[in-house]
């Protein structure tokens, strides 16, 4: 068990996600940077899909009641055991009674804290992930709070294992996010569509597990169309439909929003395309104000990027086998 002395800003239990309920409005949830989540688990000898803590922008302060091996991947926040600094992307031992805390955020956005044995909250609809909006899963359906006692499973990890820097992945500056245009792309004028890729956008402060909002580019201009019955009055409105994970909606044509793992499953805004699956991890590591360039790709390029990411995860498994 671990005791939460200070929860940080938004720390929640996440695993690889919950599948098969999106048609009822329950999104997949799970770690936003799935590569970092799996690497953290493998470093401490867990199955790669075990539940971990995802800490956003700021680390928690946790007191351990039993000996454990811990690894912190993803965002650059230096972990400390009773004040002694440890390395990121490397497993280290924490003894019963010791306190794990973190230095401030130096890069990225989300740290993945894996503990040998995994976080042992109940499985709800096939996953331990927290879906805060629905008060479902994780620790009592919510992010951690001071005083929580979080159960940890039995595990045996080894301290001192690390993952080579070549096997990690983080967004560059500007962050390049690859997009497959589609869905309602044909509503956007050619000029405006070109501007969407030319402009440098910035992550807005409204960036969370549901979605990431962007500002700074020129507004979207729409082609002339008749308003379809039932869609609503704004040119960006559609008859409420499903939202793909990674889809980019632009309410009112002004600020693009990319839906992530706690996505609202549908609604009434048009989407101009979708971030390719290989780049969703990167969004999870973007801080507000990160300059961002959207890059147009084809389906073949999207599938190649997906294969490259799968191969990288394969090499992580081999390195930490």
């Amino acid at each position, binding site marked *: 068990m671990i005791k939460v002395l200070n929860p940080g800003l938004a720390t929640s239990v996440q695993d690889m996600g919950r*599948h*098969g309920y*999106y*048609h*009822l*409005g*329950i999104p997949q949830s799970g770690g936003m940077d799935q590569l970092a989540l799996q690497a953290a688990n493998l470093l401490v000898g867990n199955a790669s899909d075990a539940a971990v803590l995802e800490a956003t922008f700021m680390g928690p302060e946790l007191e351990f009641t039993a000996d454990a091996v811990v690894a912190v991947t993803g965002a650059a926040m230096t972990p400390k055991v009773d004040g002694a600094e440890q390395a990121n992307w490397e497993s280290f031992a924490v003894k019963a009674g010791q306190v794990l805390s973190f230095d401030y955020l130096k890069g990225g956005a989300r740290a993945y804290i894996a503990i040998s044995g995994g976080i042992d909250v109940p499985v*709800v609809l096939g996953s331990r992930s927290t*879906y805060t*909006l*629905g*008060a*479902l899963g994780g620790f009592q*359906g919510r992010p951690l709070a001071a005083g929580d006692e979080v159960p940890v499973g039995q595990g045996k990890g080894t301290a001192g294992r690390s993952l080579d820097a070549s096997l990690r992945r983080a967004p560059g500056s500007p962050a390049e996010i690859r997009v*497959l245009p*589609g*869905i309602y*792309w044909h509503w956007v004028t050619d000029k405006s569509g070109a501007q969407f890729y030319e402009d440098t956008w910035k992550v807005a402060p409204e960036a969370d597990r549901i979605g990431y909002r962007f500002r700074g580019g020129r507004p979207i201009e729409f082609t002339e169309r008749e308003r*379809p*019955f*039932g*869609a*609503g*009055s*704004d040119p960006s*409105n559609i*008859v*409420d*439909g*499903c939202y*793909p*994970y*990674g*889809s980019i909606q632009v309410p009112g044509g002004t600020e693009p929003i990319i839906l992530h793992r706690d996505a*609202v*499953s*549908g*609604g*009434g805004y048009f*989407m101009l*395309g*979708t*971030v*390719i*699956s290989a780049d969703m991890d990167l969004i999870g590591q973007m801080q507000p104000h990160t300059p961002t360039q959207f890059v147009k790709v084809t*389906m073949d390029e*999207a*599938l190649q990027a*997906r294969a490259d990411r*799968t191969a990288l995860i394969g090499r992580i498994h081999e390195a930490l086998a």
Partner: protein
Amino acid sequence: MESRYTFGGDEHVFCEVDTEMSLEAFFKSLSMTNAVRESQIRGVTEICPANASFQIKFDPDIIKPDDMLAEIKKLEVQAESAESSMDTRIVEVPVLYNDPWTHETLMRFRERHQDPSGTDLDYSARINGYDTVDDFIAAHSGSPWFVSMVGFVAGLPFLYQTVEREKQIEVPKYLRPRTDTPKLTVGYGGCFSCIYSVRGAGGYQMFGVTPMPIFDPQQRIKYLQDFMIFFKPGDLVKFSPIDRDTYDAAVEAVEANEFEPKIRDVRFSLDEFNADINACNAKLEGALK
């Protein structure tokens, strides 16, 4: 009505059955998603019907996107010839219209509304040509609604009224979405009513609240013990206006876990509906009497 297919990244096929809303488009979306479920195409991970569109999520490591698309398109002929009738259920949903909680909330977010001088009900009644709010409430609660989609957040039903298009209520969403909506608010946006399953952000006009929970992640409520979400696409709903005393009594019954929603099995046929809307609705509502 011609379906348009497109990819949502490398993991989703998105199909717009029609650009505008109609019961025909909804039935086709439902038949298509049923056909995808029955055909058990390998690699399908989520099957999501929506009002006039649907979405299939798949694993491109198992099936290539173009092959997935071809498999779905194959089912379209079959779905078009599918009988547009279904065995379903009709549920009576009690509503306290013009309640104090949505009223407090709509006053708090008035500057985000098209008409800050009145309430959401005043505004919606006026722009839909009703003389009084009572007439408007009578229209909203006067005939059944189809659950044409479940989503946005966990368990939230979108509802489409079974009346002629010229009688359908249409209202815009708030100019800017609210950051708060009371739990179990009965809302309206575009041509859809909805019931907010949880408290949270929202852009729909607010008309009232129901005492009947429709989502319970703890599954303590007895009629949500089999599954935490009450509604599914294809359910029918009849709103029933109630007064404050009846509302309070229903809330007490919910708290004592003694509340039982009124549910009856019915068959809906789109052909019967199109032939005689009033007779079809009378039959559906009759099941609740």
